[in-house]
């Protein structure tokens, strides 16, 4: 049984649906990231799952119980989905502890539960503070404690780290991921940040124009994307024109390149070999290219080179800086590539 199951759901705000025929499934205790640019329909999907929007068609199940469908519609307050919105959404007129206890029924165990939750997010000493007195990261942790208070079946994190600065972000992200796994909570993380999705999630759904482009584990999506747009959503990618020569080999201007494939492709099919910047190395012999620019990142550098045919390629230099602009370098291609036939390049499934 899946913790969340969305099948064939379209939804919107009257007029054209914003999300179209969404299928999704999340296993219990897993963290799914929904990754997409702004305007791709992520928030609409979240509102549909939480019950603030009624889908036009399709069904939604939580722990096997149908909560939305042609004849069923469970309102948000009965779905028991924890919500951690952007910037926390803490009630400004309540203290930290009052925020956390907002969703808990009044009974003998209530105070203890609040204590427990505040301890979980490491904010016990701030129980009486007002939300405005907290840092952005602390606000997010309170928001998470509040969402966990009712032991929800699912937690939805809607771009929760947006307002945090970069250094804090990594830290809070790791904290929250740990708390979620510690409490064995199933979660959906909505984000437009590829690093966030890749580093935190067990699985990723890529969204674009209201549809799901691809769905899978971070590794498989990163290394063998099923379309060019899906590949680009997860990070820089090189597109090399090629033709299929045999089952796992394509002919390109750099000679034969090996690739993984989702389905068998006929020999002679034209298309694109996709390769990540880290799958290209600098070597002593290989294809020569000219270094055009270098972006230094400290632990590594992103080098843009131009090949003799005029193709621009991005190469990740793990050694940090070994070349200079204007140098001629030799490129060695590793075997971790994907082939996308020209007919599927747009990414429509």
């Amino acid at each position, binding site marked *: 049984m899946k913790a969340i199951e969305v099948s064939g759901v379209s939804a919107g705000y009257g007029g054209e649906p914003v999300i179209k025929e969404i299928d999704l499934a999340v296993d219990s205790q897993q963290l799914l990231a929904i990754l997409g640019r702004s305007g791709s329909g992520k928030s609409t999907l979240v509102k549909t799952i939480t019950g603030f929007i009624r889908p036009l068609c399709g069904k939604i199940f939580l722990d096997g119980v149908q909560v939305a469908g042609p004849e069923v519609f469970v309102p948000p*307050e009965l779905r028991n989905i*924890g919500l951690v919105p952007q910037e926390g959404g803490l009630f400004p007129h309540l203290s930290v502890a009052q925020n956390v206890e907002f969703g808990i029924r009044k009974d003998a165990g209530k105070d203890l539960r609040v204590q427990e939750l505040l301890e979980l997010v490491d904010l016990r000493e701030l129980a009486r503070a007002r939300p405005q007195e907290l840092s952005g990261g602390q606000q997010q942790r309170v928001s998470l404690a509040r969402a966990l208070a009712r032991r929800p079946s699912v937690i939805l994190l809607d771009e929760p780290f947006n307002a945090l600065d970069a250094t804090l972000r990594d830290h809070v992200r790791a904290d929250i991921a740990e708390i979620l796994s510690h409490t064995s909570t199933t979660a959906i993380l909505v984000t437009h940040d590829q690093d966030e999705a890749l580093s935190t999630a067990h699985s990723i759904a890529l969204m674009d124009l209201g549809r799901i482009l691809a769905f899978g584990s971070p590794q498989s999506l990163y290394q063998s994307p099923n379309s060019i747009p899906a590949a680009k959503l997860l990070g820089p990618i090189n597109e090399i024109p090629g033709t299929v020569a045999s089952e796992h080999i394509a002919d390109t201007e750099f000679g034969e390149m090996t690739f993984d494939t989702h389905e068998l492709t006929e020999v002679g099919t034209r298309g694109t070999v996709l390769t990540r910047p880290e799958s290209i190395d600098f070597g002593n012999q290989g294809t020569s290219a000219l270094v055009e620019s270098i972006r230094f990142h400290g632990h590594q550098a992103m080098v843009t080179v131009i090949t003799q045919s005029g193709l621009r390629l991005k190469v990740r230099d793990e050694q940090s800086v070994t070349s200079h602009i204007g140098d001629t370098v030799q490129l060695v291609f590793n075997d971790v590539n994907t082939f996308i036939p020209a007919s599927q390049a747009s990414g429509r499934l």
Partner: protein
Amino acid sequence: MEVLSRGRTWETAGTSLGLAFTVIIASLAISYPTALILTRVHVPFPRSFFTLAVLPLAIPSYVAAYAWLAQFPAMSGFWAAALILTLVSFPYTFLPIIVSLRTSDHSLEQVARSLGRTPITAFLATSFRQSTPAAAAGSLLIGLYVLSDFGVVALFRVDTFTRVIYSTYRASFDKTSAAVLAGILVLLAIILISLERKARGRTLRYRPDRGVANSLSRLTSTRGIRSASVAWLTGLATTSLLIPTASLFILMSEGTRALDWGELTTAVINTVVVSFVGAVIAVGLALPIAALTSRFRNRKSAAIESLSYSGLALPGVVIGLSLVFLSINVFPAIYQSFFLLAFAYAVLFLPKSLGASRSAFESTPPVLEQVARSLGKKPMSAWMFTTGRLSLTGVAAGGLLVMLTSMKELPATLMLRPTGFETLATELWNRTELAAYGAAVPYALALIAVAAIPAFLLSKAILVTKSEEKRPTEISISA
């Protein structure tokens, strides 16, 4: 329909609109400098000066006109009326403007400065632009108020629409002509409402505030600017408050008749109670409409909203008459009852309560409501716990405003009050009808004093920027 073809009808329409625009422009010319001084210049007693700039709301326009006339008998005509109407109604633009200036994002102004703008052009390009919807809303209230004002134009003998309707109705009992003229008046009001809607346009509603709000510290102003500011504020308080009240005190000292304290006390109690009940009903009517229009902008909600503003455009006489008609024919039990009078106030001043509630709701992020729902609250209680709770001050401010205006209302009160039920406004009227001006003065002063209480509370409600709330509760008294 020959009324329409009369040249005089159109001339009167021109006078009404001209007066409305003159008063609006003059009010803006007073409100912007005052609001700027109180937000940007270090002046002594800023809170007291703020309250003084709100208190003119407590002075009924006809009382102000009468008080000025008593000292300057030569005053008459268009410009005299424009002056008095401006002095009693500028707080309607001052309040929304100062709230907007206080809450606007000053980092924009700083960006504009860094891009080479002078302090003034930077202000005009950013904070001023952000304040225009608020200023437009306040201007609408003033415009509608001037269109429906009767007392001032009657005293200064300016032929505006309300006066012509009244005299047509009075002189010939020609109901059809009066109705046609009233129809044109409503049309003028609709023009104003649509102009305001255009000016408001698509304003960004939930200003995302991240981290610490970027507040512009008060300018380190020169002594010259500070003294000029104090002189401006003092001058404003003198003309809008001191002159009319001082004039009334002078008149009272000249009066000879002994004052009946019992009558005065009864009138005070009646005034407070009936206007309070009216305010409660108005808030009750406004809440659902405001809740609807603040979250859903579409043609239907806009129509409901416009409809509820029509009360402002209709002179009290018209609403009074229609409620008399309605109660006699449909609910005879409530005719001339206390409840009907309170209800009339609620209908008349619904827009004020509506505007205040709506902007309070709009400044609360809807995500809080969603979080409350996800934590198991039903829609109503989720709303009460979040949006409702956070907008309390704003909603209360709207109620205070209704109470304040109800206390000053005259024509509908005269028509609808229960027999023998006297308020301060009616007692005042009874005495001026008998030309007993000296005897009327204590009632005028009592009315100002009583109305000053909600006006004072209103200024306090707006001044309260609760320290525990990062986002100051946005209060607007306007549409």
